[in-house]
């Protein structure tokens, strides 16, 4: 998951520029002068709000943009679980724009189509996270698999409602793999694992106590 710690955001737009640079080749006719045309995320302010924040696609569980798309250009990539747009197929009807309440879909001013975050595919970290000078954008793994304990039984795969867990063939046999783009940290897999192989990063006892202490002003 890409998290945004907006308390630190000063609206410098370094993430936008990094995103645009990264995707410059995808937009025909975009050059350094029209650099921002290629960006797939932006820094915005909530309606009525005052604080800037980076806005990129949330890769929702039931994406409304996917419901909106009349051509099927907007699709969920079966391998990575990301919501992507097939830019060749998009006809620029703008239906997805009005269905996305995050404002995460960008209009390509040159090519009459929409552009959106692809999380820089499998590359880690994505350009926006890497460029952020203020630790606003960070990438966090919410759940992880202890592969020494995993026996590849596949229970987690069948229980995950988001399709975020898949079994993978590894030299040590079949092991489960969590797709961090899809995982929303619900914890069903962790609680069901017969070998206690799936761990939650955040909601440990230590973490919970820490939060409580902070709230009570002890720490």
């Amino acid at each position, binding site marked *: 998951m890409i998290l945004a710690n907006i308390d630190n955001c000063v609206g410098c737009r370094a993430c936008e520029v990094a995103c645009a640079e990264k995707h410059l080749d995808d937009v025909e006719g975009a050059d350094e002068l029209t650099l921002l045309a290629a960006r797939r995320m932006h820094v*915005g302010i909530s309606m009525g709000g005052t604080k800037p924040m980076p806005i990129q696609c949330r890769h929702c569980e039931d994406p409304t943009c996917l419901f909106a*798309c009349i051509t099927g250009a907007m699709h969920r990539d079966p391998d990575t679980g990301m919501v992507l747009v097939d830019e060749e197929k998009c006809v620029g009807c703008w239906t997805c724009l009005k269905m996305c309440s*995050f*404002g995460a879909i960008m209009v390509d001013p040159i090519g009459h189509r929409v552009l959106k975050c692809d999380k820089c595919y499998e590359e880690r970290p994505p350009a926006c996270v890497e460029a952020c000078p203020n630790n606003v954008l960070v990438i966090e793994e919410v759940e992880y698999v202890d592969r020494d304990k995993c026996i590849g039984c596949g229970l987690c795969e069948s229980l995950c409602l988001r399709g975020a867990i898949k079994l993978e063939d590894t030299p040590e046999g079949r092991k489960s793999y969590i797709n961090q783009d899809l995982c929303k940290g619900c914890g069903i897999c962790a609680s069901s694992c017969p070998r206690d192989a799936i761990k939650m990063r955040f909601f440990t006892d230590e973490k919970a106590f820490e939060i409580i202490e902070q709230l009570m002003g002890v720490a």
Partner: protein
Amino acid sequence: MRYVIVGNGPAGINAIEAIRKVDRNNDIINISEEPYLPYSKPVMPHYIGGSVSYEKIFFRSVDFYEEMGVKAILNDRVVAFDPEKKLVVLDSGKRIPYDKLLIATGGKPRPVKIDGSNIEGIFPLTSLNYTKKIIKLLPEVKNALILGGGPLGLKAALALSHHGINVKMIVKSPQIMSQALDPDSAEILEEKLKLSKVELMLKTDVEYFEGDERVKYATLSNGEKLLCDLAIIGKGLLPKLDFLDPKKIRINVGVIVNQYMETSANDVYAAGDVAESYDLLTGGSNTVAVWPRASEQGHFAGMNMAGFKKPYPGAHRMNSLDFEGLSCIVMGDVKTIKEGFVVIIQKDPKRRIYQRIILENGLLRGAAIIGRIVNVGGINKFIRKRIPVSMVKESLLEDKATFIY
């Protein structure tokens, strides 16, 4: 357990995807009267205009049915259904029992009472078969008529004019898009149409068509006789209720559904253009035929069929189209003005920008945003969720605000 889904438009396909998300094992059968894989009807004008190739009119991959583990029965029509015995009967004589049935048959063109409208060369724009015929005729066409001023007709008019055809739009109302847009907004689009060499004839209608093998002339209600070798009828859609018997299932304009997309018949659901569902703005019901409404309803129907009780929040009218660079996005109702409604208008005629939002008791009722694309996702969310807008009224049409959550 067997799911039977009638129709493979956005509602049917999204229902299949929703069911498969939570139920990977039970049988799904998808019946469609057309012989094609799921294809997109709103893309038909783009296909005629040549900007979209044949391969790209299909909105899911060619392996969709295999990937989803769905048995598809294409080119066969449901002719009857028996909610008591829980089965549907097909044209080919097959009888298919179901445990859960989804009616997602979509819409059919509103019938027109014009003499000669059965002559060759006059088509509605509602299926791939018609579109193929239109494309085949194109090289011989010099003068085309579009009847009706809806979004699909507008797109078709522009597509035909790209082929160098003289296009005339015949619209009965005093403006185009009379169901969705207010007269001022429509005027901007009308101007743009003129630039695109589409001649607009308002407040008139075709009285009768003439021609032997092919259509040749159309005579208007004012007596004017026009050359016409192709006519496209786009006068809106009605729910397609062919095999449905009002004695067996509750029907008003469309099939009436509750918030779980259930019809009055047991284990029978309906979604998409055929369904009459809750209207967010009026509190009544509507049968608006728009793509996102159909997909969303299909999704909710699928979830509920698979046993997940998931209430559907309701829908409102919306349209969006792009006139060769002039975008037009309409959400909610921008036409009705009653006492107490607040109308905010912002315009910049030089840049062809016109924005209009309508507030009722501090709630957003509708917005038409022409010439730019700003905040549309946020505005739509305000309408859908009925969130008071007093705090953000000023920033609704500004560039800086971009979203709400």
